[in-house]
């Protein structure tokens, strides 16, 4: 089969075999990774859960990782990151749970329009938010809202492994009605060693009430000091947990995944120079904001994904000039260097091949 495919590839140069196979069925592609939606389910009003069947090139993933998912909306391919929520031990199946953001383009589209048979593009799985091997004796998983997906994947994966150590999932949601997977969480929480603790910031019903604090920690996982903690949720939750762990000298035991960019605190007062986007022939004064925003403000539509420097979708070549990485503050002025537009702020004149 491999040799036959290689021969077909040579005969079908320059376009390659996928460009012909997809005309028969978009899921027949051999090299590109795609996935077909096989099931759509709206567990809570604001979310949609998609079950996917990936194409043959899908290599499988590790619990906690994310994939870049592409979907065509009015002719434009949009790419966003989503963390599969299922167990890593179920090959041939992927599950995404997506919260519809009020003004979000992709999440609202999928929430509204995803149906059986829709074909999405996938990247290889990425990201280092994963459990160590062998598994830690004590594990604390903390999530908020749609941030449940990567830690649920961990919990389900551990269940498939028949893991017997202490595992607690502490999950935050506004009310009980906003918690997807409620029944399954109950079942998972009944496994020996595993606990699932729901906390509701509005309304009762859950085990805990209000926002994250030491009291919640002591209640849900009194052994948290000896545990590895995996955290995924909105910025206020992330900040609260990070602060508590820092005060307790436990920062090293805390692993965090971010769905949304931390609000960038940018000093734009000393922005100078001009930004030139050479391929499109556009030029504008540097505003001191990240280049992705400046490109969008200039009417360009560069490819991007996470907008926070993790997915590398927005990588472009900087032909000339210096940029500052907003995360590290580091300035680099190499010519013809690949940079990520979303986290690069121009320092003086720059030229981007975009």
């Amino acid at each position, binding site marked *: 089969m491999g040799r036959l495919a290689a021969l077909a590839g040579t005969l079908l140069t320059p376009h390659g075999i996928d460009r012909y196979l997809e005309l028969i069925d978009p899921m027949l592609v051999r090299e590109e990774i795609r996935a077909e939606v096989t099931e759509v389910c709206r567990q809570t009003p604001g979310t949609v859960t998609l079950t996917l069947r990936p194409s043959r090139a899908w290599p499988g993933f590790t619990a906690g990782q994310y994939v870049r998912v592409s979907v*065509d909306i009015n002719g*434009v*391919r949009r790419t966003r990151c989503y963390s599969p929520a299922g167990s890593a031990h179920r090959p041939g199946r992927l599950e995404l749970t997506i919260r519809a953001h009020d003004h979000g383009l992709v999440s609202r589209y999928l929430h509204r329009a995803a149906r059986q048979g829709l074909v999405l593009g996938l990247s290889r799985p990425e990201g280092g938010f994963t459990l160590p091997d062998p598994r830690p004796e004590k594990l604390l998983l903390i999530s908020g809202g749609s941030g449940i997906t990567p830690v649920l994947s961990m919990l389900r994966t551990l269940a498939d492994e028949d893991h017997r150590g202490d595992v607690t999932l502490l999950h935050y949601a506004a009310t009980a009605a906003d918690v997807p997977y409620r029944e399954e969480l109950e079942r998972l929480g009944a496994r020996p060693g595993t606990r699932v603790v729901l906390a509701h910031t509005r309304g009762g019903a859950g085990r805990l009430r209000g926002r994250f604090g030491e009291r919640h920690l002591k209640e849900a996982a009194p052994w948290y000091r000896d545990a590895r903690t995996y955290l995924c949720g909105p910025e206020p939750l992330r900040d609260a947990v990070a602060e508590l762990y820092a005060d307790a000298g436990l920062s090293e035991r805390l692993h965090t995944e971010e769905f949304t960019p931390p609000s960038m605190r940018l000093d734009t007062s000393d922005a100078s120079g001009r930004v030139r986007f050479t391929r499109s022939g556009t030029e504008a004064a540097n505003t001191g904001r990240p280049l992705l925003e400046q490109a969008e403000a200039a009417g360009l539509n560069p490819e991007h994904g996470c907008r926070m420097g993790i997915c590398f979708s927005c990588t472009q070549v900087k032909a000339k000039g210096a940029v500052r990485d907003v995360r590290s503050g580091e300035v680099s002025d190499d010519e013809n260097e690949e940079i990520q537009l979303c986290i690069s702020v121009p320092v003086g004149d720059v030229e981007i091949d975009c």
Partner: protein
Amino acid sequence: MTGLQDRLTPQQVEDFGREMDELRQRVVADLGKSDVDYIQNVIKIQRSLEISGRALLFAGFFPPAWIAGVGALSLSKILDNMEIGHNVMHGQYDWTRDPALSSQRFEWDTVAPAENWRHSHNYIHHTYTNILDKDRDVGYGILRIDPEQKWHPYYLGNPVYAVVLAFMFQWGVMLHDLEFDRVVKGERKWSEFAEVRKRMLRKASRQVGKDYVLFPLLTGPLAPLTLLGNASANVVRNLWAFSIIFCGHFPADVESFTEQETENESRGQWYLRQILGSANITGGPLFHLLSGNLSHQIEHHLFPDIPACRYPKIAPEVRAICEKYGLPYHTGPLHKQLFSVAKKIVKLALPGSGRANAPEPSTLNRDRNLEAA
């Protein structure tokens, strides 16, 4: 040469440029799914023609099958190179962010590597359209196609070179990027083209490998017939592409420019030069499709990165704007334009301007008003 700068007053040029920009903005804002569906549909037709053509040649012992096979394969190559390849590589579909429609990644079914061609065509030709000594598409470095090109006894062979180039066009397009003429004149060094040559070698061996080795071998005893069929399809595409492209810039009434004239051009002046330096070809929808919509060369040169399927729709507006400013809008049927180009090639084989009796008004909008200013 007609002074590019004296056509319109500076104010008129600016207004004219603004109208063009507005037209462009309107189209860009309206791009969407129907444009993607259109090109995907053309791709589907092209790939089906390609597969059918290849398959029919397996029955090439039966003459009608051979002829149909060559026909389908020729059409496939024409669509691939013209409406799909040329236009995708212009970035007309980059806004879709589909990697299969990305100007940077697309590769076409011809020996010229996409990467080399993108530089010489998108950048050099489209930026310096019809500027002598800058736009290397003026005569392809082989022909004398403009009276301002200095005559040399070499050009006595002008018509012969043109015929050879027409038959070998894909190779001409490939070798064009080596800039032989400039290397010979000592303006550029052979060693500067190492990368360009490497890409050519790789691409050409793949193309030759499939068309002239693998597919013939696969048809076993029919190998010579298949080889002949594939070669014919390549030649049909070559002749077609040559005709369309030469009619786009070289009919008698199309103008060329000097470097001086175009120094410090404004956007409006650039638009103006694109209009004066291009010519359309009239025809039906199928003809436009097969020409890759280069039959709307004027619209293409004004807006090279707008999906070509939009050109027929905006052509009446472009024409109306041209009329408003008293600018010519060159257009004519294929046979007329071809004849005009052929005549020019023959005339310019001999010394002199080939322009004994002033510009020929053959296909020109006759009411053009040169002194609109």
